[in-house]
């Protein structure tokens, strides 16, 4: 088994050019089994289905390794295959539930995530907030947020609508945590000024 931290590129190269193909494949399997298991588990699949999905992911890797040219990182290439496998499984599950029939499995990836959720919007995701603040105040707040500068607006949305902490917001928007903190501080001042006394206790 390949040790964790050992470069994976030579293993992939051996798998690609067919020298020690089975052994290289086993090395990849051993090394990425648990990362894939945790990924599928977090996507809501039960353990036995995770096992199936890992196998399907590796079958696709085995068949498609020729297409991996090292232009992107290996783990990203693998993640994409795993995400597509998860999407197919969810579609299949939905189709079986709907009609007890098979579904065509051709289209993948770009439109794939749309199958996982209906479209989202500020209004759609603001439902918990609406329950907290009431409809009128929430609508006022959303209009005011939409008027903020782009970076500030995105920070506020992630904080208020998705309830993320500063570090997570920083990682998602690829900013320094201190920048996020400053943006949210400024945003609170602006929103309190714009919305008046009814938002005096509003915090971010």
């Amino acid at each position: 088994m390949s040790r964790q931290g050992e470069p994976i590129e030579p293993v992939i190269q051996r798998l690609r050019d067919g020298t020690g193909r089975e052994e290289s494949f086993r090395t990849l399997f051993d090394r990425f089994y648990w990362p894939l298991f945790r990924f599928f588990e977090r996507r809501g699949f039960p353990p036995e289905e995770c096992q199936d999905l890992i196998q399907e992911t590796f079958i696709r890797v085995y068949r498609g390794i020729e297409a991996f040219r090292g232009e992107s990182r290996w783990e990203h290439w693998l993640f994409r295959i795993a995400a597509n496998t998860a999407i197919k499984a969810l579609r299949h599950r939905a189709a079986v539930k709907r009609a007890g029939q098979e579904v065509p499995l051709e289209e993948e990836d770009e439109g794939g995530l749309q199958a996982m959720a209906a479209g989202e919007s500020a209004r759609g995701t603001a439902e918990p907030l609406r329950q907290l603040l009431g409809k009128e105040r929430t609508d006022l707040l959303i209009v005011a947020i939409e008027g903020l500068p782009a970076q500030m607006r995105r920070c506020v949305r992630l904080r208020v609508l998705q309830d993320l902490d500063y570090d997570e917001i920083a990682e998602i928007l690829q900013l320094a945590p201190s920048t996020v903190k400053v943006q949210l501080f400024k945003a609170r001042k602006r929103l309190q000024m714009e919305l008046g006394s009814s938002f005096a206790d509003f915090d971010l």
Partner: protein
Amino acid sequence: MDHAGTKRLIAYREGTLPEAEREALQEHLSLCPRCTGLLRDLRDFEAAAAGAVETGPEPLRQEAWESLVRRLPRETKTPPAVRPVPTLPARRQPVASWVYAVAAALLLAAVGFSIWSAVMVRQERRRLADLEQRLEERESALAEVQRALAESERQLQAALGRIQGLQKDQPDTLPDTRETELEARIAELTADLEKLRRTPRTPGGPDRITAGPRQIDLSVAPRFALRGQEPGGGVLRGGGAVNPVRQADRVTLAVDLSDHPVHAEYRFELMDENGKVLWAGRRPGKSLLGDAGTTLSVSGLAPGSYRLRIEGLGPDRTELLGEYLLEVQTPK
């Protein structure tokens, strides 16, 4: 904006998105918990791939690997074909007389090499035949040792049985001399057994038989077969919907679900002859790459009769798809 798509999220993480697309994606992410969730999964997967991952029981991974190897289509098992290197068209050039001399010398060398190769091949074949003969001898010697070992074990068991019988029937009246005699016999047999176990290996040839659990024999007979899949009755030893695979002290059943009605889920139950459920498991409905079946692996089954039930589960009904009788026995 539509949902981001894994490809775009990866490009975002790798920093290869053009500025305008990057801005649009950040705008979308701020509104879409689904895409931020996937981005966080991607981040976690990167960390896990770098080693920061909580692992679980090792047998689970081993089981998945074995199952994967069985599922790999045969045609993909062969290594990719080596692409032929295109050759440049040969250019015609005037042939000098020294070229003929060199060609003749090469030809002579080639003939000499062929003769030498033939001799070497013959020698190698002879050596191989010798090795094969030695291997056969070694195997028969080992089989003999095993037979003797089995016989000693049988005698030991018989002696133990006799003692137990005597103790049961006449626990207080067993004469001391008889007891001593039996104990001496047991000690003798135990020593024999140990000696046989420690028998040194015959030199030469690989060790083909290792000490370990006994093989078991397994037969599967359908009571209610999976629809349209079984041949007409009788005992199955491979080729039906449920294919038993004999392994040391372990029963593996490969169940072929490829030709059956679609169900949302399948339930498997292994029962003893009194109907007590020893093991139960579920798997989801048809696999996405076509259904190569499912594999049940049960270890430590004592000799006896068992039943394997396979049921298809739907949202509002359960259908009995098949029921099989399993006979597990140790070989004579």
